[in-house]
C-alpha cells in the first residue's frame, strides 16, 4: 500500500507475491532493467525477454492498472518494473499457448485484483 494514502506515502511495503507464487518473475528481471519502459510496459500486449529470444503474450496488466488507480498506488510498476511481475500460465483456449499473467507484488493491490477477478 505504499504511496496509497498520502499520509503514508513513504512507508515501504514488503513484496509478497514473489515469495508465494511459483515461477514468479518481475518485469525488471525478465525484460531487463535498462530495456524495460514503465510508460510502455507491454507493447502490443507482449513482453520481451532481455535477450529478445522469448516473447510472451501478456494478460492482466489492465486489471492491475485499474486497481492501482482505485487505491491510488502511484508506484504500481516501479522505476524499472520491479514492483510488478508475472507467472506463465497455459491458455486453454489457444491450445495451451504460453501466456504471462501479470501479478502485482504488493498484497493489497493483489487482493483487490483477486476480489474483482472472482467476478469473471
Amino acid at each position: 500500500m505504499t504511496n496509497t494514502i498520502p499520509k503514508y506515502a513513504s512507508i515501504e511495503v514488503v513484496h509478497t507475491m514473489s515469495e508465494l507464487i511459483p515461477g514468479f518473475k518481475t518485469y525488471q528481471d525478465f525484460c531487463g532493467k535498462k530495456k524495460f519502459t514503465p510508460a510502455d510496459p507491454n507493447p502490443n500486449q507482449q513482453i520481451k525477454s532481455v535477450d529478445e529470444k522469448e516473447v510472451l503474450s501478456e494478460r492482466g496488466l489492465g486489471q492491475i492498472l485499474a486497481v492501482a488507480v482505485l487505491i491510488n498506488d502511484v508506484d504500481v510498476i516501479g522505476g524499472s518494473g520491479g514492483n510488478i511481475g508475472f507467472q506463465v500460465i497455459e491458455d486453454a483456449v489457444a491450445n495451451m499457448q504460453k501466456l504471462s499473467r501479470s501479478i502485482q507484488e504488493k498484497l493489497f493491490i493483489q487482493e483487490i485484483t483477486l476480489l474483482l477477478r472472482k467476478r469473471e
Partner: protein
Amino acid sequence: MIRVRTSGDQEKLWLHYDNLPPGTKQEFLMTVHKILRTTRATFRGFFARPGAHHFTTYFNLTVDFLTDFLVERQAKLRAEYGRDLELLMKKNPALSEAEVTLGDFDDVFSQEKARKEEVMAAQEELYFYVDPNVICSGSLVPLSAKIDEFIDFANENSSNAVFLLKGDSGSGKSLSLRVLEQHLLNKKRDAERSPMPIYIDLKQFNKANVSRSFQETLQKQYNNEFDPKKTRLVLLMDGYDEIAGGCQQNLYDVQQLKQYAQNIRVIITCRTQYLSTGYQQWFKPAEGTLKEFEIQPFSTQQINQYLERYSEEAIKVHKRSYTLEEYQEKIASLPNLKELITNPFILRLVAESLPQLEDYLKAANNKKKQSGIQEEISVQPEKIVLNRDMRSINVSWITGL
C-alpha cells in the same frame, strides 16, 4: 494518465492510457466497470473479513476509514473513465453481453443481499460450531466449561478478573465469543435477570480511542440501555490483536472497570502470536487476577464431528460436498493435510474446497489427455491453505479455477 512510478524524469512517471494496447485498455475498462459496480458493503467486507486485520493494524486505520477511502476513489474513477467506458460499451457488442453477466452478478451482490449473506454466513458458522478444548491443570477441558465457570456471578473468583482467550489465527476465538453471546441472549430471553452479553469488536477501534471502547459500544450499539452499575454484563472484547496501530494497554484498568467488578465479567480474545514477553500486564487487573486459556487444535473426534455436520447440511442444500467417509478417505490420501485441518477456519476451507478441487483436476486432466499430454496435474495439500493470514487466497486462486 496513470502514474506508475515515483522516481525518475517527470515525463516518465506517467503512463498514457491512450497508448495502452487495445486488449489492455479493454481489461482496464472492464475492471473499472467492476469497481464502479462494487458496493460499499463489499469493500467493507473485504477489509472486515477475518484475517484481513493486517490492513488496519499496519497503518493504524479503521475498517471504516479504508472503506471510505475506496468509495471516494471509486467516485474519482467514475469521473475520469466513465465516459470511455460508456463509449466502449456502445462500440463493442461483446462487452454489452458481458454487461448483462455483470448485471446478474450485481443483482446477486446487491447491498441487501450482501448483508443477508453476511448474516447467513455467521449463522452457518455458529451452526457448525464445535466446542474447542483448552488446557487446564495439564488436562484438556471443554472451553465452554471454563467460560461457564468464569461467568457464574456466584463465583467470587471471577470478580475483578479477566478471562484471556488465546489461540492461533482461525482457531475459533471470535466464533466462541459469538456462540457465547447467542447462548447468553437466549438465556436472557428466558430469564430477564440473566446477564447481558456486550460484544465489543476491538478492530473497530485504534490505540487512541480503544480506552473508550466499552462506553462507546454501550452507547452506540446498545443505546445506553444497560448500566453496568445496575445490570449484570458479560463483556466480550474480541480481537485485542486487531486494534488498529497495535495496543498494549490494559483495557480493564484504563477503562476503570473495577468500579463495576461485582456486575461485570470480562473476556478478551487475542491471537497467541501477538503476545510478547510480559503480556500478562496488558490484561491483568491491577488488583485482580488474570485467567488465561489457549484454544487447542481439534482432535480427530472434533474434526469428524465438524465434517459430519458440514456434510449433512451441504447435502440438504445440494451443495457440492462429500460424505464423512469420503472426506476421511480424501484427507488420508493427501499427505500432511490432516496436520493442517486442526481449526475451524481451515476445516471449513478444506471441506468446501476438496470437492471443487477434485472436479477441477478431473476437468484439467481430461483436457490434457485430449491434447496428448500425459503428465497429470496434481496439487500439494499445503498449497490449499497456503498462508493462514491471507484468507482470500484459497484453492480457487492456486488452481486458477
